[in-house]
């Protein structure tokens, strides 16, 4: 009697295994969606789930893929990092999906990675991140640091004459790494150590009074000062509110952010923030017909004209389109075949150019700098002349400058050490 629930549980588990094994004889190609729908990350990730569902729907309207319909399998890893690994395993072994679109935070990707490599799954990761990774089983369609941070700093130096730097971030690996890279980069350019202030705050930090006041003090030392912000997600709203309230205008101390996009700004009134900056590979305000088409499609799908688009959505869009092309080219959804077919794929990006998948599983993308407007959109004030190829291993970190990722034959290695000529880590 006592153990009935366990027995039932077990029999359920066994039964569902059997059922799903039977179900794969069916036709559809399965697309796994591994984005948090509850918990702290739901704010950001729900949109990406909807984007994938929209792309699947659109692909099905266009006749499916390889003559088979696509079927999205959505699970909720609930912003719980171990659960990401468990759900990835569920998607790959129980649902037997052919591809996964998912993850937002680095830790969730790190959690999923061993599962993907063990089961030889395929995942598209659509968010800007700290780099220092290249897995055979992951395609990184967001920006690497050299596609966001470095051009942003160049812009501030060259166009605004910034000489003093505040590197403010949330205390986790993306800001830590980005700031390490930027610090090394700035020192290389001759910026003195006392002209760099580094500050870390915990997740969801909400009381920014002292820090903003410190930034003001730091910025009143006679040199043009800028803040490079890698502050994560929901800590940004109170941060920007405090900036506005304490009267830090973009003319005095501009703030350039790498994690603040249209969606984050839609949560609050941006009029005190006009002129603060963000660096991304895409903005909703991009003036290109392909972008307008995408926005129209999104609005039609979600049924709300006020919903915005953002960079991770574009990354998801590019990733999805590329995967479709690669599957068509390979004629199969087999992971190894698709992985090889992915390299060199090109897709029209939403800013009017072309995205190319490089041999290190990172994209070539344009870098855009935008200024916040009072309607929560960005005005593009600068962009790179061409596209910048994503660099998996930063050239500015001592531990990784000799590393190289190349997944094409004959090297097929994610972390090839050019000095010792060896491939460390997992070898395929």
């Amino acid at each position, binding site marked *: 009697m006592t153990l009935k629930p366990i027995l039932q549980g077990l029999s359920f588990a066994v039964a569902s295994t059997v059922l799903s094994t039977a179900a794969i004889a069916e036709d559809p190609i399965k697309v796994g969606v591994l984005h948090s729908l509850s918990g702290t990350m739901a704010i950001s990730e729900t949109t990406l789930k909807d984007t994938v569902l929209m792309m699947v729907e659109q692909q099905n309207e266009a006749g499916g893929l390889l003559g088979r319909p696509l079927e999205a399998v959505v699970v909720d890893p609930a912003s719980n990092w171990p659960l990401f690994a468990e759900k990835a395993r569920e998607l790959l072994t129980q649902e037997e999906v052919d591809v996964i679109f998912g993850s937002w935070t680095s830790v969730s990707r790190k959690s999923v990675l061993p599962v993907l490599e063990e089961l030889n799954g395929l995942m598209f990761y659509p968010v800007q991140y700290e780099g220092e990774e290249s897995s055979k089983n992951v395609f990184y369609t967001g920006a690497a640091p050299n596609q966001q941070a470095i051009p942003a700093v160049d812009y501030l130096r060259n166009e605004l004459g910034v000489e003093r730097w505040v590197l403010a971030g949330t205390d986790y690996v993306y800001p830590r790494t980005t700031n390490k890279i930027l610090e090394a980069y700035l020192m290389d350019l001759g910026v003195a150590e006392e002209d760099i202030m580094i500050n870390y705050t915990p997740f969801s930090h909400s009381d920014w009074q002292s820090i903003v006041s410190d930034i003001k003090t730091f910025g009143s030392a*006679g040199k043009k000062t800028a803040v490079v912000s890698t502050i994560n997600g929901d800590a940004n709203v109170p941060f920007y*509110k405090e900036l506005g309230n304490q009267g830090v205008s973009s003319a005095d101390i501009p703030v350039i952010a790498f994690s603040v996009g249209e969606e984050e700004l839609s949560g609050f009134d941006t009029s005190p923030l006009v002129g603060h900056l963000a660096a991304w590979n895409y903005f909703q305000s991009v003036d290109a017909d392909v972008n*307008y088409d995408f926005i129209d499609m999104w609005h039609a799908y979600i049924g709300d004209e006020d919903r915005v688009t953002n960079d991770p959505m574009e990354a998801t869009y590019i990733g999805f389109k590329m995967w479709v092309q690669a599957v068509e080219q390979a004629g199969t959804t087999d992971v190894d075949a698709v992985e090889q077919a992915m390299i060199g794929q090109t897709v029209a990006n939403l800013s009017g150019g072309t995205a190319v998948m490089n041999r290190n599983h990172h994209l070539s993308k344009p870098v855009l700098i935008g200024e916040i407007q009072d309607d929560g959109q960005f005005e593009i004030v600068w962009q790179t002349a061409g596209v910048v190829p994503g660099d998996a291993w930063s050239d500015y970190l001592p531990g990784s400058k000799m590393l190289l990722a190349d997944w094409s034959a004959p090297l097929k290695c994610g972390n090839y050490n050019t000095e010792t000529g060896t491939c460390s880590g997992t070898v395929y």
Partner: protein
Amino acid sequence: MKQALLMFGCWLALWSTPTVAETDTTSSYDDLLMALTEADLNATQPILEKIEATGHPEVLSLFQTLLDGNLHFRKADQVLLSIVDVNGTDQYTEFQSGTAIEPLGRRDVSKIRVNNNLRNFLSSAIGRLQLRSSEPDLRSAAVLSLLTTLDAATADDLAELRREESNRTVLSSIDLALAMYSARSANTVAAQITAIDTLSDRLQPEARNLLFDLERNADNPAVREAATAALKKIDGKVTFYGYVDQLFFGLSLGSVLLLAAIGLAITFGVMGVINMAHGEMLMLGAYTTYVVQLLMPGFINYSLWVAIPAAFIVAGLFGILIERCVIRFLHGRPLETLLATFGISLILQQLVRTVFSPLNRRVAAPDWMSGSLEINPVLSLTYNRLTILIFALIVFVALLVIMKKTALGLYVRAVSQNRDMAKAMGIKTDRVDALTFGLGSGIAGIGGVALSQLTNVGPNLGQAYIIDSFMVVVFGGVGNLLGTLVAAFTLGIANKFLEPVTGTVLASILVLVFIILFIQKRPKGLFPQRGRAAE
């Protein structure tokens, strides 16, 4: 082909500008406007300089519209449009003729873009244009916007204006500007040093920046010394005001903690319910603010006055509902209320996620809460923090009055101290329980209105504050409202004075460790409840 022709035309127009400028200012102004629609960001400033030089009467309004980011042009004929957002709908006007037109699609208009450099130029240009404005505030702001960009001609202009000026604020701004000008570029060292002395009484960051610059880069050693002395004097004051600032930050953080915790001081402190759904009551209050603002667009300034009672009612009703449906069955089992309310908090979060989407909602700040009370250039108290501090105290006093002076308060205390005895005395304990829980939840809802002005309004709002709230109530002593007040401000101030020394995270950790150790010393908090009701 068409495009090429158009480009050629524009190029012609640009080319012809200088020659026309000499003869006919209006046509040149029009041509410059045309050029404005064609120029890229780097080429815009020279055009704007030329526009300013024309002295055309429209320049001020043109620059203002441009600075506000409202200047667009129609792609078809390059006519300038002003697009202004009035209560959520865009109103399109032809800029020069002033005639209203039908809204156009986003593919048909293009914006005249400005970046930070242009904004700096525009605001100083507007400053120059407004030096003779009739409003003293505008005049003063105009002078201050010129501080760092003052050239000889404008300096002379300012000196001339100073003679006619009677307003003290404006005079002080002009003096500052002139002193900065002479400190930088006076002919004699003596004049420079006099100017530096004047600056040593000023706290404006621009003046400090200039002094830093002089200290390092001035040619004459006497000037460098004077700058050092002036900076020392200024730094002393800045440090003092820094402490005042920190104290204010601490009080402000304390007031936020108080607002977050005060509802819990009732539901947990007085009723003994370990209310894990308390955070969700805060969240409901914040969402009520959002809905109220949605229902009354255009009245954002008054929305909070509606939102406060509305949030009280909404959260209060939810509280009563929870009490009637769940908590009343759990009397005498306080630790089990934890489980039930934890379940309720999950349900409420998901409810909000389903109804309002998981995205954060935009809650606007009323005008009277934005900006800051500037006591001097280094010490300004932001109005929203100030308002919330005062608001927290008002809510606290009101709650204290309810608990101490009203019949309900008496019943509540009676029931919480001895339920059976209270029942025997004829108090309807059931009703009192429901009303108490409703009161606590309603107060939490009001706290949520205040939080909506500071942080994200999203499904996770409550979770961010629940732990802090429990710490405050326990630290102050369960069941003691005054304890909650003292605890909130103590923790707030301690946090803010630790932060500069240890960093944010360590400060929070130290405060937590302090609470743990404090509870060892006084196991019932700051103000322990006396008597048998304590357990």
